[in-house]
């Protein structure tokens, strides 16, 4: 299913590029708007690629990408700038990413932290606390669902900094 989705996405892009031979060189950069409620991280910045943690899997967005509306899951958002080099990594707990057909991508998340700023010790201890809350909560209650969400977010935060929590 993932393969067919991948092919479905790449095919139009490849076709479009193949067709636009005489037309002006397809822009190789995309515009990124990445905003949090309390901080504007990128507003109209030109970058070369963004890897988005979609709910169905990670996918990369480059210039002339097919328009997509993606719900994000807790994971790492990677931004590759035009000046090649290490991609910038942000951990996001969720949000939405909308790619338009003019190579503009809007990513809106309630919160995001740079992966470098994450403290592994805090992640482990918070994960433990969430797991305790999960086992202590009544089965099927809202508290248990919240604890489960917490556990998932911390688990993926842990894998982002290289620790394996389960």
């Amino acid at each position, binding site marked *: 299913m993932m393969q067919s989705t991948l092919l479905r996405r790449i095919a139009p892009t490849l076709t479009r590029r193949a067709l636009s031979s005489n037309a002006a060189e397809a822009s190789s950069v995309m515009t990124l708007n990445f905003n949090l409620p309390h901080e504007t991280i990128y507003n109209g910045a030109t970058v070369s690629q963004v890897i988005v943690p979609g709910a169905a899997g990670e996918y990369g967005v480059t210039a002339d990408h097919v328009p997509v509306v993606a719900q994000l899951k807790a994971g790492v958002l990677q931004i590759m700038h035009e000046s090649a080099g290490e991609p910038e990594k942000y951990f996001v707990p969720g949000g939405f990413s909308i790619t338009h057909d003019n190579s503009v991508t809007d990513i809106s998340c*309630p919160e995001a932290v740079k992966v470098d700023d994450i403290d592994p010790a805090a992640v482990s201890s918070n994960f433990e606390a969430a797991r305790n809350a999960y086992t202590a909560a009544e089965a099927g209650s809202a508290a248990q669902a919240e604890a489960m969400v917490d556990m998932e977010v911390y688990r993926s935060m842990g894998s982002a900094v290289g620790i394996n929590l389960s």
Partner: protein
Amino acid sequence: MALRVAPAAKRIAARGLSNFMQSRGMATEKQIFNQIQSTKNIQKITSSMKMVSAAKLKGDEQRLATAIPFNSWTTALCGEPTLVEDATFEELPQKTLIVPVTTDKGLCGGVNSFITRGVKDCVSKLNAQGKECDIVVIGDKGRGQLRRFHGDIIKRSCTEVISPGTFSLAAALTTELMAAGAKDYDAIMVIYNSYVNAAVYKQRYKLIKPFSGEGEDEPMMMHEFEPDTKSEVLGDLYEYMLTSQVYHSFMDGAAAEQSSRMAAMENASKNAGEMIDKLTLQYNRARQARITTELIEIISGASALED
């Protein structure tokens, strides 16, 4: 001779004094003095409130400046906010949920009155067009003002909203709206004050419609959806969009509230200052009249002794 003149002078002075008292309607010098003192205290309070508002306005302006790019993606889906002034509300659908954003605290100038006036105008125009609407009020002042005439259509009210607002607050408000049956309405109209600059704010409204439509009308046809369950993603996107819009309106309203409070307190301090000047003149006149009376008493007493 002096004896005959002195009492006459005293009587004239006394009559003049009592005329003076009656025409002023003010009693003694002591009372005027007390009034001057209390007005000075009020002036101190209002001018300090103004300075506090000016400081808070800086913070609110910055929060608004971040909220605008955060919310910019919703404009493509919902359209630009419209000015309430001279609005006909004809583009509103059959059933609308009106969400006015007002303040909890007072002494903020006209921010709440403008919003409630806009809401009343909208309700009457909608009723004239044969459309229905309900209200979910945010803010105590709005609730108080709207309860009198439109109490029957107020579905919920959210008060004691802690400011400054955060995204979590907007999310909580959206949950309340969803619980009030937001999905049953054809559109949600958020009406709020939009901060233009420190002296000017305007009322605007945003229409947020749920994604719906089949076949040709299908929303966002060009886009792929990830995960594939389009209706689920659209549902979540609608809630997220609503939260983002409410957050932006909140930030805008907060900045407008602070600027309005600053202006109102500035006017109050100025008016208090003018009143103090006027009262001081009255006080001086009363004091001088008293001194004159005492002098006359002394002189007439002395002249009585002479004889």
